[in-house]
């Protein structure tokens, strides 16, 4: 028993020792899918889009935060529809900042998590408002599995679990997952912010916003694996490195220190390969087990003028991988990474 405890402690210690290092440059070919600056019709322009998701059909749904609406595009970026606008009654989505707040199920019903007055709104793929339910906390990410169970990552200073699960009718089902820092506090809140995505077998992958870790949970919420990736060295100034540890954060959970944003978003394709978008211009590719297979910087089409905040692909194995730039409202895609 003691040996098992010791091994667990050593494993935890190794995970707690962050890896900060420079990462290599990689080449990816990004093709424009939707360029907000081009259409003359103001209705077609995105304003500070916050989140993107791709359905099995290949259609793309964007949470257009600045215009408080959802925009539906076809796989080539042709504008199909908009819904959830301010004048659409109970289905109006409210702007809520840059959260990874949109998901689709296998029938392409659209789930939007609104952090302002926290709730989840559900729409049909045609944009028809179906229903909504309230949450006691804002959520930073939303994912949906094949059973239409909704997984939410809370953004709260309260000591909670990492993941809360609701049915698609809005009934709270269960919660699971250990937070990185269990104490309440503002720093603990920032460190525990996470993003989540489901694979085709309903496993849930979770990555933390400011800590380089990918966790894989079974559909029931059992922790299957934890894998670390590298923090790109430019994100953590030398002066902060000695304190950039879970031990330090646990010791000062209410510190005013705001950790740098490392992970922006997570997405998984039909083969189970996962992608993390880091700090706007780096990618972590991980295997279905959660093990990191590669990590690299990539050059944006406009030579790093783009600020990519989301990566998205679909459970359809042939779907490309999309990148969303929140500043310009541009969407690019690549066939593989």
């Amino acid at each position: 028993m003691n040996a098992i405890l010791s091994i667990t402690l050593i494993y935890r210690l190794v995970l707690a020792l962050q890896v900060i290092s420079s990462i290599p440059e990689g080449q990816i070919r990004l093709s424009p899918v939707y360029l907000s600056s081009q259409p003359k019709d103001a209705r077609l322009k995105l304003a500070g889009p916050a989140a993107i998701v791709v359905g099995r059909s290949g259609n793309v749904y964007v949470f257009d935060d600045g215009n408080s609406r959802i925009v539906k595009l076809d796989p080539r970026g042709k504008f199909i529809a908009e819904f959830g606008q301010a004048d659409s009654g109970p289905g109006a989505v409210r702007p809520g900042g840059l959260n990874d707040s949109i998901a689709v199920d296998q029938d392409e019903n659209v789930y939007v998590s609104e952090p302002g007055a926290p709730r989840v709104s559900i729409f049909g793929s045609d944009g028809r408002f179906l229903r909504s339910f309230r949450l006691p906390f804002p959520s930073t990410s939303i994912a949906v599995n094949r059973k239409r169970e909704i997984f939410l990552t809370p953004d709260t200073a309260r000591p909670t679990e990492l993941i809360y699960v609701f049915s698609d009718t809005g009934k709270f089902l269960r919660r699971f997952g250990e937070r990185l820092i269990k104490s309440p506090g503002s720093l603990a809140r920032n460190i525990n912010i996470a993003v989540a995505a489901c694979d085709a077998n309903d496993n849930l992958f979770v990555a933390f916003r400011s800590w380089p870790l990918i966790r894989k949970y079974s559909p029931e919420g059992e922790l299957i694996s934890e894998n670390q990736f590298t923090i790109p060295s430019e994100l953590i100034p030398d002066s902060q490195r000695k304190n950039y540890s879970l031990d330090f954060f646990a010791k000062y959970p209410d510190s005013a220190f705001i950790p740098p944003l490392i992970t922006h978003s997570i997405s998984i394709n039909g083969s189970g390969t996962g992608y993390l978008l880091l700090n706007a211009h780096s990618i972590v590719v991980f295997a279905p087990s959660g093990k990191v297979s590669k990590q690299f910087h990539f050059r944006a089409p406009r030579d790093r003028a783009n600020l990519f905040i989301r990566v998205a692909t679909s459970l359809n194995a042939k779907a490309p991988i999309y990148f969303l730039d929140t500043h310009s409202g541009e969407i690019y895609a690549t066939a593989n990474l």
Partner: protein
Amino acid sequence: MLIRLTLLLIATLFIVNCHLSAVSRSNEVANSFARVKITTATGDSVPLPLGNALTIVNLFDEFSTGCPTGNRFEAMERLHSLRPAASILLIFSEKHFSTQDIENFKAILPMSESLVKGDIEAVRPHLTSGKLLVVLDSRGNVIWHEEPGMNEQQVLNEISNLLQTTSN
């Protein structure tokens, strides 16, 4: 001399007016609060259940642990832990929260026995940042209510003093 007398008169009128408007607001809150009802699991509207001594009631038109309403919830938790005997009722607007929402909150948040849904429309004009806290005596009379601009520490201090005075 005339200027001094005029200034004194203005100052007196200002103080009297402030006092009168505070009294007037208190009366309005008390009158409106009399019409607040809670909604039972069967959907019936019933009067608020009152404690033997004081009942602390907070109305929520909005709620999130990540905003000022969350801070209020934490203040209520602190009161609850400091004075477990005090009756606490947290009423969520039935206009914005469904029965399912309240059931979820009961399963997720502490103080589940205090969380209820209710009709708070009568008090809506008096809500500040989507919330209002009042203290009722055993007959349901409003004996204290929060004023706009009060912070959580002030609310906590004033209610703690009130509870202390009552228990003495």
